């Protein structure tokens, strides 16, 4: 059918001894399953962005507060509720991080509106600049004046910069936000860690021994799950008194059931795998089968599950703060900060915005990263 272009020379037609060794060669470079997973993960752009964001946030949690000279609990009422002011960025007007507090006053005429504003600022009027937005024609709210109040100047700290502003007590929100991040992450990691240990052990034992043991353990689990976790967490917190450790414990007490079920299911599946049988026929003791054959093979699942546990713990902590069962003042977590800010959503939005953004970034990052991990640990996904 096909003609080859160049007549091959005759000596090419010599027999070559077959090299048995060579025939068994594996051309692919050697890579472990994990290395493969990591490689796939590294190619997943969103997951990498998420990972980097997380690393940055964790670093900021540890070192962020050292960028400010104020401690997280240092108060000074004279600098209460300052708006954010960030060097360099303060010159970009739409970012609104110049430490100015802008508000619009309305009245029948601009003059009246300004008068109204002056009442509000009282003694501090010298720090306020007024811009007339509309002169007004005598009808209600037609006169509009924008007042830009230089809070920093009024507080006598023109040269200070509070990147995230301050709260009512005059505490530096930058420091508090990163301290809070640290605390929140700590709670989440702690909860996830307890969760992991208990869940993996319980699920592993139940799945591995199967039969009656499994049956009873699962019935017990179902009953535990029948108690809404919210109720348990709240009861635990009442018993243990609010605090970092008790919140983590309370979260873990209900959290591990999910992990246990997942691990059990997987172990149940894995123990039917022939390599487990092979180990049994060799005489490997149960303990070692669990440790060497089962656990490493559910590792991917464990990691993914933990990744999903962490954001939900952060979520739950925020939620507990919201219903008033969070940390004790003056301790800060992202949850308490968001909760504080929420109350002043319309008046001092900066109190809410920064912790809310951080919490959202953490949550999104963990979720995206966990999704990415799931894809990279799943061989089916890998080929797609």
């Amino acid at each position: 059918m096909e003609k080859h272009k160049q007549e091959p020379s005759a000596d090419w037609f010599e027999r070559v001894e077959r090299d048995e060794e060579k025939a068994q060669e594996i051309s692919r470079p050697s890579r472990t399953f994990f290395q493969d997973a990591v490689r796939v993960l590294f190619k997943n752009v969103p997951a990498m962005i998420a990972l980097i964001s997380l690393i940055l946030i964790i670093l900021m949690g540890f070192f962020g507060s050292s960028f400010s000279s104020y401690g997280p609990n240092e108060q000074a009422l004279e600098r209460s509720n300052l708006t954010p002011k960030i060097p360099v960025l303060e010159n970009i007007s739409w970012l609104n991080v110049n430490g100015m507090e802008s508000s619009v006053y309305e009245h029948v005429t601009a003059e009246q509106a300004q008068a109204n504003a002056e009442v509000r600022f009282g003694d501090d009027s010298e720090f306020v600049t007024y811009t007339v937005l509309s002169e007004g024609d005598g009808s209600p709210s037609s006169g509009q004046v924008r007042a830009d109040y230089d809070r920093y100047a009024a507080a006598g700290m023109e040269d200070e910069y509070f990147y995230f502003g301050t709260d009512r007590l005059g505490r530096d929100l930058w420091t508090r936000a990163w301290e809070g991040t640290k605390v929140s992450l700590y709670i989440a990691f702690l909860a996830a860690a307890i969760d992991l240990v208990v869940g993996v052990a319980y699920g592993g034992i139940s799945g591995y021994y199967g039969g009656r043991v499994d049956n009873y353990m699962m019935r017990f689990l179902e009953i535990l799950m029948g108690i809404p976790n919210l109720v348990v967490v709240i009861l635990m917190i009442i018993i243990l008194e609010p605090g970092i450790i008790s919140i983590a414990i309370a979260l873990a007490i209900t959290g591990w059931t999910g992990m246990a079920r997942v691990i059990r299911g997987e172990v149940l599946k894995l123990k039917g795998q022939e390599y487990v049988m092979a180990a049994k026929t060799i005489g490997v003791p149960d303990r070692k089968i669990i440790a060497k054959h089962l656990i490493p093979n559910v590792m991917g699942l464990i990691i993914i599950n933990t990744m999903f546990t962490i954001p939900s713990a952060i979520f739950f902590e925020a939620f507990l703060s919201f219903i008033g069962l969070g940390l004790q003042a003056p301790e800060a977590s992202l949850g308490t900060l968001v909760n504080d800010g929420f109350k002043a959503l319309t008046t001092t939005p900066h109190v809410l915005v920064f912790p809310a953004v951080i919490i959202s970034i953490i949550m999104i990052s963990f979720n995206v990263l966990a999704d990415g991990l799931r894809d990279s640990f799943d061989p089916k996904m890998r080929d797609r």
Partner: protein
Amino acid sequence: ACSGNSESGGESAEGEEGQASGDQVVDISISDEIPSMDPSLVTDQHGMQWTGETYEGLYRTGEEGDPVEGIAMDHETSEDGLTWTFNLREDAEWENGDPVTANDFVYAWQRAVDPDTASEYGPYMMAGVIDNATEVSEGEMDVEELGVEAVDDYTLEVTLDKVTPYFESLTTFPTFLPLNESFVEEQGENFALEAENTLSNGPFKMTEWSHGESMKFEKNDTYWDADTVQLSEINAQVVKETSTGVNLFETGELDRVSISAEYVDQYSTEQSFRTIEEPSVFFLKMNQSNDGPLANENVRKAIAQSIDKEGLADTILNDGSFPANGLVPENFVTSPESDEGFREANGDLLPTDKEAAQEAWAAALEELGTDTVEIEMLGDDTDKAQNINAYFKNQLEENLEGLTLNVKSVPFKERLRLSDEMDYELSVSGWSPDFVDANSFMNMFVTDGGYNQMGYSNEEYDALIEEAAGDSADDPQARWDAFLEAEKILVEEDAAIAPLYQRSTAYLWNPALQGVYYNAAGHDFEYKWAYVDEEAAE
């Protein structure tokens, strides 16, 4: 001696009389569901508020803060001041048409004191005031023995235990409201559990009660003074989140909502912004019962003097509250001889003085023989309280070197429980008077007093209070002096408590809502004379 000074509803209501115009419907928010509408059982602010509006007692607190005609038209007091005879009006009716008679009072009061009713306020308000109340409440005497008697349908005779100058003011309190015996007995367990299980004789009647959600009070046409009542409907909506309340106010769904510090800055220049000063005083309770550092007077003095109350009131509370330098609030009671208020008379006791505080602290440390002290402070867990707690921690730790203050924030009920068991060191507490008399504050701290709860005991103080209640009860000036003296001992000499601030509440208040009066004791707001003047809002 019922000289109260109740703040009138608002500046705009003062001066010229407004005219009712537009729909006479008012929507307000309350922060919690009412636990009870049974006058004998109410304990909370909202319950008292609405029993106060749906019932009419012997007297009602009037516009000027003094008792005005209620079911009683007037009364006579016997020579010895122990027998009070009230003449009741004959035209007063219950919602169901039954006349309001002296027997309704006898029944209600006996019911309140009866231990089976398990009323908290019944024995508390009546014991030591009405003859035999203590014995009845302890189950030692029959309820019939209580010193109250219906001479005839419209004459009520009350025998007091001892001379009680403020008894007239007491009669406005919910526990002293009448009850329709046949109705209450008929309802049995269900009495006052739902709107249809209540029976009103006051300016308003409860017509709807959606638990946890809202209540509706409509004008009670059978009320003897119905002509005066202008509002046709009051709706009380349960709103727990301040922001939600503000949003509802913004959209016109509420006519009045209380706001937190955060919103004050935003609304302080608005026409609808209003603060109402209350005779509620907040102070640090210092538990002296155990051998903790607070048993040391210098520690207490140091703590009391080192908090910047000015900043607390102006920046953190930011709702019109102001520093308190004494136990008895400002604008509460005045001297029997002049218009001078209690506060002015007694001056600032133990005001903020950081230097003095540090001196006291140094002395205290020396006495204790240590240079680090750890104290736990009990506080509420509301958002406002959390801020206050954090502030105190900072203030105290900054000013008093070597002090570590551990904050423990707990729900209100839990704080009460811990106080009860004296399981605390420092506690941020507040007190609102139950009747308009300095004694409502002062009798708290006598040795083993019900609310002492901190092991404070000073014989001199006890003697002064005893004297005011007993020997000099009918000598107003002597009483007055005794209270002044006692307060000095309590606050200045012993630093048993550290007064913090007197509370005001900031409201967004629809300017159209007028004629609402604030009461110093009993129920907070009086709507009998309230009206909506849409024109005033413009």
